[in-house]
């Protein structure tokens, strides 16, 4: 009876397309919004994940994220280096500044000062220029998204900037994941950064550390905290802190949650109404089938086949559109740079579609099962 059920459904083009649209729209909305949400959250962890070699971040005890911390005294670096289990430690400055472009525009930027000798803290991939160029006087590297923002026509490398009233020359472009705030990032040497940033007593933002081979990073971080009185977080913990900060301090989860819920509700409404209309239009035929000798289990299988087909195709279409959106967006626009779709999102969308199909299918099925075969004679 399965093919009869499918033909009943697909033969009614308008309702079939309406059902597919409902499921596909829901899938697209849920998948696309969850993808944006997750990737925005991950941007809260981007500054931490960017530094691949350090597995421990040390900061002021009040520090919460890469952007929310108090500066440390420069002696903190040596104190961390002296903790047993620390293989190496390097300084990192993160601070806000303002640049004036050659066109005279002002732009807020993040200045990141990395260790002069090792360049720990600098993204690994260069889009243009060489890492060695950072050793040149007044050299800064700009992130690729920032370079396109400030220099739409290109030609960023070699350009002179006025950074907090001081001369800076762009010597290279790095491939960096945009941060949550999407500000332009300028990388420079730690010693340079001290010159660029306003003078305060303490200017060291973080100490990046690496646990010695065979040492557990968590245990070393705990030891650093105990022996220095500073806050030490492993890389995964600190990345998670950045995400949690966004969740706790912005309306993003609620807004995206509302959109996802709307996607589900609109999907249920469209699919439910259309499926109910479809069943209502075919109720006499279902009644006739029951009179002829099709039992309720076969009727259940027929409705399940119809709902399953709608769910499968609608989900596939919606997911394909969402994947296309992410791929095209990531490939063509800086706003979606680095976006990807974690495998959990299609699974969540599949579960939501399954619930939607079960809900609407069961409601439709109820009216079919309640139809008495004798009604076809009335």
């Amino acid at each position, binding site marked *: *009876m399965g*093919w*009869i059920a499918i*033909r*009943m459904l*697909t*033969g*009614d083009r308008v309702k079939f397309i309406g059902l597919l649209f409902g499921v596909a729209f829901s899938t697209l909305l849920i998948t696309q919004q969850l993808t944006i949400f997750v990737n925005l959250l991950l941007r809260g962890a981007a500054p931490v994940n960017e530094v691949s070699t350090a597995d421990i971040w040390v900061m002021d005890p009040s520090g919460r994220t890469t952007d929310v911390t108090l500066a440390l005294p420069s002696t903190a670096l040596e104190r961390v280096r002296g903790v047993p289990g620390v293989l190496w430690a390097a300084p990192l400055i993160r601070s806000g500044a303002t640049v004036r472009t050659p066109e005279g525009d002002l732009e807020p930027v993040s200045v990141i000062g990395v260790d002069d000798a090792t360049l720990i803290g600098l993204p690994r991939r260069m889009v243009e220029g060489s890492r060695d160029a950072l050793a040149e006087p007044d050299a800064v590297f700009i992130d690729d998204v920032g370079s396109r923002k400030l220099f739409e026509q290109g030609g960023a490398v070699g350009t002179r900037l006025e950074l907090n009233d001081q001369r800076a020359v762009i010597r290279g472009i790095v491939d960096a994941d945009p941060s949550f705030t999407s500000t332009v990032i300028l990388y420079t040497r730690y010693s340079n950064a001290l010159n660029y940033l306003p003078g305060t007593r303490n200017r060291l933002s973080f100490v990046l550390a690496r646990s010695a081979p065979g040492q557990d990073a968590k245990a070393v971080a705990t030891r650093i905290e105990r022996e220095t009185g500073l806050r030490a977080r492993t890389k995964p913990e600190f990345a998670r802190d950045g995400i949690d900060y966004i969740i706790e301090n912005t309306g993003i989860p609620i807004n995206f949650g509302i959109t996802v819920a709307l996607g589900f509700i609109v999907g249920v409404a469209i699919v439910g109404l259309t499926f109910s209309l479809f069943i209502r239009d*075919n109720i*006499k*035929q279902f*009644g*006739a*089938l*029951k*009179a*002829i*000798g*099709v*039992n309720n289990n*076969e009727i259940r299988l027929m409705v399940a086949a119809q709902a399953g087909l709608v769910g499968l195709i609608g989900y596939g279409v919606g997911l394909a559109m969402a994947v296309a959106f992410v791929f095209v967006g990531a490939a063509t626009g800086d706003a979606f740079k680095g976006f990807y779709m974690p495998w959990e999102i299609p699974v969540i969308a599949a579960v939501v579609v399954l619930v939607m199909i079960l809900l609407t299918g069961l409601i439709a099925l109820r009216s079919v099962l309640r139809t*008495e*075969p*004798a009604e*076809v*004679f*009335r």
Partner: protein
Amino acid sequence: MSEAIRVEGIVKEFPVGDTRIRVLHGIDVDVNSGELTYLVGESGSGKTTLISIIAGILYPTAGRVSVFGTDIYDLSDNQLVRFRLQTIGFIFQQYNLIPTLTAAENAAVPLVAAGMRRAEAVDRGRALLERLNIGDQAEKLPRQLSGGQQQRVAIARALVHEPRLVVCDEPTAALDAKSGRRVMDLLREVALASERAVIIVTHDNRIFDLADRILQMEDGRITRDGKQMPEGH
């Protein structure tokens, strides 16, 4: 002629609010195989209820119905559904064809429901449509067919699995005289085959002359049983 259907003391009541309305008052009737039996009467006389009970799609409040020796309401629900599928063919006034299936596929539905492979079932449906002189319409959808052609597809669906009992609700109501006559000739041919019976609910006095037996109902009772057209029709 042997006994095809035995109806004994059938009572049917429907709940209406707090009360129950009795629409059949202890009906007793036998129908023989090889007979074309008409059930006639005014609207609300109970003929649709009676034919539904005889066909095994409406449980009576009291009484027994035996179809070719089987007490159908002693069967379990699933057995009764199976019995209907194997033994009874239905022709509905509104045809109730599936609009998105071709004529041949519609005709094949009972065979598919019985578990026959789709291709074989559709072939048999198509062959029966040939016999009903609409073989050339086999691949058309119901909406592409005239009322008479749709009724013949419905008849094909009712007969394709060779049921022993065929129940029809106003099979000629939507047809012109010529088409109605052709349909009745066909049903008569079925009825005259051995060990089969056809019961028809009808108001159509154009076809009364083809009946072997006419049962007239009034207020939930059979008030006349004979071969003559009842008065007033």
